[in-house]
């Protein structure tokens, strides 16, 4: 199936650290980047917290879990640049783009629904 390009959406709705979904979904994104598909990441509900700046934890200090947040900044190096956050989720949580550690596109509900409606493969974690 050479040359098939599908629209892949990674749906992130969970906070980091409390569960492993944020980290392990990012690991799929990194591997998936090598397959030259049309990749988008959507951060909705508590998923917006995955992108919060200033995450401070190390294996030996604080929460004792490795901080993986800088990996989000490495995504552009893998040509994964379409990061979308849900406006409603941000507002409910008192967050603005300035609180996030990477550039994102903020979508309102209609725009986010439109984006999702266009996808071929949707991976939820």
């Amino acid at each position, binding site marked *: 199936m050479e040359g098939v390009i599908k629209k892949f959406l990674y749906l992130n709705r969970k906070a980091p650290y409390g569960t492993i979904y944020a980290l392990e979904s990012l690991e*799929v994104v990194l591997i*998936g980047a090598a397959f030259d*598909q049309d990749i988008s990441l959507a951060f909705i509900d508590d998923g917006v917290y995955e992108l919060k700046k200033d995450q401070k934890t190390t294996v030996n200090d604080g929460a004792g879990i490795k901080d993986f947040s800088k990996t989000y900044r490495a995504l552009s190096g893998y040509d994964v640049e379409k990061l979308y956050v849900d406006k409603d989720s941000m507002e409910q949580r008192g967050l603005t783009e300035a609180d996030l550690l990477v550039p994102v596109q903020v979508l309102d509900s209609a725009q986010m629904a439109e984006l999702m409606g266009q996808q071929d*493969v949707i*991976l939820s*974690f």
Partner: protein
Amino acid sequence: MKFAILVNEGPYQHQAADSAYQFAKAALEKGHEIFRIFFYHDGVNNATRLTIPPQDDRNVVERWTKLAQDHNLDLVVCIAAAQRRGLLDANEAKRNGKTADNIADGFRISGLGQLIEAGIQADRLVVFGD
């Protein structure tokens, strides 16, 4: 149609593994093809050979092994998630100096690329999780 299935949770803890199984079975009964079933996060625990469920309840792991055998299915367990959770085949155990392996029949350990490939090759991908 060709289906790909992603199972994100382990047996018994969540209904995900049961629902995925029911879906796979129904799809096969309708004459569809299952390209791959990929096990991620705690889903890798669907592949443990050491399960001893109560006699009067379903045996989730064996059910997968049997379905795979009967229909020649490709059940793939993610290597990274498996290593984290201690789910190993003989090769992995040897490679990493572990004293035992515990993967059940019908499953194979491989990389996340297999999930992406399944998304590309299948007509539909369905996710079962929590």
